[in-house]
């Protein structure tokens, strides 16, 4: 049986063939940071959450910020691979796995952040033994577990033919563990047209389910805050606002990863600027949506002008959180929008700069949603001093989470092809192949040609053809 014919096959599989010395060095550094975080966590587990900066009334700090942020990062994967699959955006194909891998490796740190934040991790099973389904935490456990499980299945299914390709093309001098790994993970996949057709069907059907799930999960994450009566949290806009923010930061993270992959694995031919440009346009749309929600939320609250809501707003706009708030506003919206509309049109470097700024901004946004509301609770008396600063312990654990995520991601790219080989193949026996790479050149030619506005009739004819 013939393998799918992909002219870039060797290029895409090259990173999985061996570890370079520099890569091993990076892996060691990441492991060291992750282990340091683990050490700090053990210290926290033994001594108590007192080693954090959390207090009364700021009972939740950066661990919960990380929880929302990591779950948010995860959303881009499903957005790009499921939602864009449903709307038939072919350009997603080479990016889908890189984005989905963010989902897979970010979710455990999101869920893990909740565990890190718990006072008594040793009693975590109580949530199952004595679970109270009226609590949004139980909703979260259900939603995130389902999301993680479904994403892994979705991810694995689309990886399956590529594992088989790895198995079939393994050089003779490859280490035995790779041979064993690929053989067992490929589950005996044969490259027959029928199998590919079935796989496409299943992935299409799962995409519908994943789309609903991605909307639900981040809405449920927002319910942890929205279901309480706290000023600034108790609003119906929180669900969609969290969702848009999640896809926003996740898409920015996808661009960052794409750029690193292109640079490190020499994928200039495959990850051409065209794909970055699609993501750039997506980011512009998301930045505008994000600012729309931001504007609507604040205008409604300020116009209503109730005293308990205003104490939060004033703290954010002019008070002790104003520096964080305005940096967030500029990082999430104004600065990236200017870059995206100008410099990033032609430069991946600028696009990555905008993406990094967006992600710093989105982390701060999660902080700004969570901490000021806690600092100014409804009953206007002095609960404590309530000024919250993360301690070195919290910062260490946060950095360790990011290092851990990068570590898993990097290991993955060294074992499996991060750009799908079968999905980007020009020819799969019995199936139409992917021609997104060629269209690239066609489009460039088109751009130079005098402007033509294709009529809708052309599209219809094309459809009939």
């Amino acid at each position, binding site marked *: 049986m013939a393998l799918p014919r992909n002219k870039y096959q060797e290029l895409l599989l090259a990173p999985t063939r061996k570890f370079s010395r520099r890569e091993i060095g990076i892996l060691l550094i990441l492991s060291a940071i992750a282990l340091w975080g683990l050490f700090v966590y053990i210290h926290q587990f033994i*001594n*108590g*959450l*007192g080693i954090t*900066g*959390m*207090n*009364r*009334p700021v*009972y*939740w700090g950066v661990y919960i910020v990380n929880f929302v942020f990591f779950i948010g990062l995860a959303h881009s994967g499903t957005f790009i691979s499921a939602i864009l699959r449903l709307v038939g955006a072919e350009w997603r194909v080479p990016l889908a796995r890189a984005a989905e891998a963010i989902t897979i490796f970010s979710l455990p740190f999101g869920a893990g952040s*909740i565990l890190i*934040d*718990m*006072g*008594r991790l040793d*009693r*975590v099973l*109580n*949530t199952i*033994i*004595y*679970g*109270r389904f*009226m*609590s*949004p*935490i*139980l909703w979260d*456990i259900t939603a995130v577990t389902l999301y993680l499980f479904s994403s892994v299945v979705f991810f694995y299914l689309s990886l399956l033919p590529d594992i088989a390709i790895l198995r079939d093309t393994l050089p003779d001098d490859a280490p035995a563990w790779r041979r064993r790994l690929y053989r067992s993970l490929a589950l005996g996949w044969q490259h027959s047209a029928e199998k590919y057709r079935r796989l496409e069907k299943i992935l299409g059907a799962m995409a519908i389910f994943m789309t609903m799930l991605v909307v639900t999960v981040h809405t449920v994450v927002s319910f*942890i805050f929205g*279901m*309480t*009566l*706290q000023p600034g949290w108790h609003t119906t806009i929180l669900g969609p606002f969290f969702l848009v923010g999640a896809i926003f930061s996740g898409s920015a993270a996808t661009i960052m990863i794409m750029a690193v992959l292109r640079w490190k694995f020499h994928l200039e031919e495959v990850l051409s600027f065209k794909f970055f440009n699609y993501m750039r346009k997506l980011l512009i749309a998301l930045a505008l949506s994000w600012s729309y929600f931001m504007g609507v939320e604040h205008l409604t609250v300020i116009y209503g002008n109730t005293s308990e809501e205003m*104490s939060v707003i004033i703290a954010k706009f002019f008070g002790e959180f104003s520096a964080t708030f305005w940096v967030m506003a500029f990082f999430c919206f104004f600065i990236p929008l200017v870059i995206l509309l100008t410099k990033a049109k032609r430069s991946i470097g600028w696009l990555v700069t905008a993406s990094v700024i967006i992600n710093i901004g989105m982390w701060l946004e999660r902080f700004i949603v969570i901490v000021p509301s*806690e600092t*100014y*609770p*409804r*009953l*206007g*008396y*002095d*609960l*404590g*001093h*309530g000024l919250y600063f993360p301690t070195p312990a919290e910062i260490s654990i946060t950095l360790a989470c990011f290092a851990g995520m990068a570590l898993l991601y990097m290991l993955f790219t060294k074992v499996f092809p991060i750009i799908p080989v079968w999905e980007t193949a020009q020819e799969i026996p019995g199936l139409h192949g992917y021609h997104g790479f060629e269209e690239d050149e066609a489009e460039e030619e088109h751009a130079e040609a005098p402007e033509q506005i294709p009529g809708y009739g052309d599209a219809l004819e094309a459809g009939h053809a």
Partner: protein
Amino acid sequence: MTRWGMVIDLDKCVACQACTVACRMENNTPVVSPEESELGRSILWNEVFPLESHAELAAEDTGADFLTRPCQHCDNPPCIKVCPVQATYKSDETGGQVLQRYERCIGCRFCTVACPYGVRYFNWYAPEWNPEIARHLNPDEEVSPRARGIVEKCTFCIQRLHKAEQLAEEEGREFRASDYQPACVQTCTGKARFFGDLDDPDSLVSQLARSRRAFRLLEELGTRPKVIYLKEG
């Protein structure tokens, strides 16, 4: 049904904090260092504080308003709904106190965030006492010191209810509402606190709760607190 409630007459309260101290000795709430206290990590099931502290009002005005605040023991408590392990619950069999199962709490602090009154306290470290104070801990097992990493709160001194019921049984007589009184009520120097059955229309607390001076904290939220305040003046 009995529904235990408390009335606090703010006209009589002199903000002496005797309630806070009595509560501490009765319920073995841990002492924290001044630095921890500065972070707002003191554990005071009953707390006395000036109102409107975010404004400078209290500082300027010598007639500062003080509020003394135990758990409000809501009939519709926002803290209970959010607990993922049913560690916090309203004990209807014992008269509607909002209680905490210390051995079950996982320390997620959702209840502390959800409570609009800020009456729930988290054990950031394992509790510690210096030996002098440790000798005076209440030996009652029901109030034995709580572990690190969990939430604790005012119980209306539920252990005193259990003791009072037991005593009535030993003495072979019917339990009366007046047998049970939390430590803060018993100790109140200005006799500003009253305690009793809100479901008994003739009880003193019921009568006071009907007073035109009566109000409840954040009444508009619909939490239906069983702590009723009487306005000053």
